[in-house]
C-alpha cells in the first residue's frame, strides 16, 4: 500500500509520465502468430481424428479451432483499426491517478505499484466458479504498453489448472492471457483513456464470470483427462481405466471382455478369430494343433473348432503315426 501522501503523489506523477510516453509510441504491430500456429495444429489433429473415426474428438477440436480463428480475426481487426486512427488520448491528471490508486486499495486485497517498471498489479479475492476453486489472481498492467494487444497478464497465485492443460488456470485464461470476450472494447477504452480503476474492475468481473461454451477448458471437464483412444476429455463420472495397461479411457472406448467382463483399451483387447468375440489375452487359449489363440467356447479338448472340422472332413489326411521297429529300420508301417 502506498503511504504516505507524498509518496503517493510521486507514484501518480510517474505513472502519468509513463502514459505520456506511451502516447508518443508507435502502435505495436503484434500479429496473432501463436494463435494462427495453434489453428494449424488443430487442423492437422482434426484430419487425424476424422481418419480414425473419432468423431467426438473431432467435434471438440473443431470447437477449439473456431475459437482460435475468431481470436485471430479480432486481433487482426484491432490492429488494422489502430493503424488507421491517430493516437490522441488525453492522459488523466496526477490527481486522478491518486484517486484511482486509493480506490484500488479499497477494491482489492493487495495493490502494488512498481515505479521502475511502471507496472501496477492488484490481487483479487479467491475466485470460485461453479464450485471449482481457482484461487486468487494477480492482474499485472504495464502502463507503457497499454496500447499493445496484451499489456497485462493474469497470474494465478494459488493455481488449480485444468487437468488437460496446465497452462489454463481459469476457464478464460491461458498462458497468463485473458480472453476478454464481452469486456474487450470496454477494457480497450479504459486503457486508452488511462482509467486504471475501471480497467482493473472490468478484468476482475471477467475473472468472476464463467462463460459456458466458450472457455479454453469447460468447468465440467476441469479435472478431466483425455481418453487414450479417441482423445475426448473424460470427467470423474465417465472415466475408466484399462485393466491391463491402466490408461485412461472414456465410456465409449472401454472394451469389455466377453468372458471375464474386465475393461480394456483397443490395444489390449483381442478377439477370437472363430466367433469374432472380444476377449482379453487371459481368456484366449492356444489351440494345441494350429496354436491360434481362441476363446473357450470355440475350443474342445484343447483343439479349436476349425481344426476339429478339418479332422472330421478329411480323416484320411489325418496325421499318420509311424510304427518303426528297431529290427525294421527303414520300413514304415501305416496304421489303417
Amino acid at each position: 500500500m502506498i503511504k504516505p501522501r507524498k509518496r503517493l503523489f510521486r507514484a501518480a506523477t510517474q505513472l502519468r509520465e509513463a502514459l505520456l510516453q506511451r502516447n508518443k509510441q508507435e502502435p505495436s504491430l503484434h500479429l496473432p502468430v501463436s494463435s494462427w500456429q495453434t489453428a494449424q495444429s488443430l487442423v492437422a489433429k482434426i484430419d487425424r481424428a476424422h481418419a480414425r473415426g473419432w468423431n467426438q474428438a473431432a467435434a471438440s477440436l473443431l470447437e477449439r479451432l473456431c475459437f482460435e480463428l475468431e481470436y485471430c480475426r479480432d486481433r487482426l481487426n484491432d490492429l488494422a483499426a489502430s493503424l488507421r486512427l491517430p493516437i490522441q488520448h488525453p492522459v488523466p491528471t496526477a490527481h486522478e491517478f491518486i484517486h484511482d490508486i486509493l480506490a484500488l486499495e479499497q477494491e482489492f486485497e493487495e495493490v502494488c505499484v512498481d515505479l521502475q517498471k511502471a507496472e501496477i498489479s492488484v490481487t483479487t479475492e479467491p475466485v470460485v466458479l461453479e464450485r471449482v476453486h481457482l484461487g486468487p489472481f494477480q492482474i499485472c498492467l504495464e502502463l507503457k504498453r497499454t496500447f499493445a494487444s496484451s499489456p497485462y497478464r493474469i497470474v494465478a497465485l494459488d493455481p488449480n489448472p485444468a487437468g488437460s492443460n496446465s497452462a489454463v488456470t481459469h476457464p478464460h485464461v491461458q498462458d497468463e492471457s485473458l480472453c476478454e470476450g464481452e469486456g474487450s472494447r470496454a477494457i480497450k477504452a479504459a486503457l486508452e483513456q488511462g482509467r486504471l480503476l475501471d480497467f482493473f474492475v472490468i478484468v476482475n468481473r471477467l475473472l468472476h464470470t464463467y462463460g459456458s461454451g466458450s472457455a479454453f477448458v469447460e468447468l465440467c471437464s476441469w479435472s478431466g483427462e483425455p481418453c487414450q483412444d479417441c482423445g475426448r476429455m473424460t470427467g470423474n463420472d465417465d472415466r475408466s481405466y484399462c485393466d491391463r495397461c491402466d490408461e485412461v479411457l472414456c465410456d465409449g472406448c472401454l472394451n469389455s471382455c466377453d468372458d471375464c467382463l474386465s475393461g480394456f483399451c483397443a490395444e489390449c483387447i483381442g478377439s477370437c478369430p472363430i466367433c469374432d468375440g472380444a476377449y482379453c489375452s487371459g481368456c484366449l487359449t492356444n489351440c494345441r494343433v494350429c496354436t491360434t489363440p481362441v476363446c473357450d467356447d470355440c475350443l474342445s479338448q484343447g483343439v479349436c473348432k476349425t481344426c476339429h472340422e478339418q479332422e472330421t472332413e478329411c480323416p484320411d489326411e489325418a496325421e499318420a503315426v509311424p510304427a518303426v521297429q528297431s529290427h525294421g529300420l527303414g520300413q514304415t508301417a501305416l496304421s489303417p
Partner: protein
Amino acid sequence: MRILYINNDGGGFADYIEVPSGTSVQQLFGERMGDASPEGYLIRVNRQHAAAGQVLEANDRVSFTPIRIEGAV
C-alpha cells in the same frame, strides 16, 4: 450541471454530459441504461459505491460496470 459519465458495458463510454440539477443515481441509470436492472451493475459515484437515491453534484464521476462480463465470446 456537468458530470463525468462512464459506462463500462459493451463498447465502453466515458465523457462529460449535462444532467438537470437534483438528478439522482437511480434516475441517471434509468435514463442511460434503459431496461437494464441496477442489480446487475456496480454503480459508483466518485469511485465509491453509491445508493440509488444519492443526488448527484456538479463534476461527479459516475460509473456503471456490469457485474457479469463473460470472457471468450
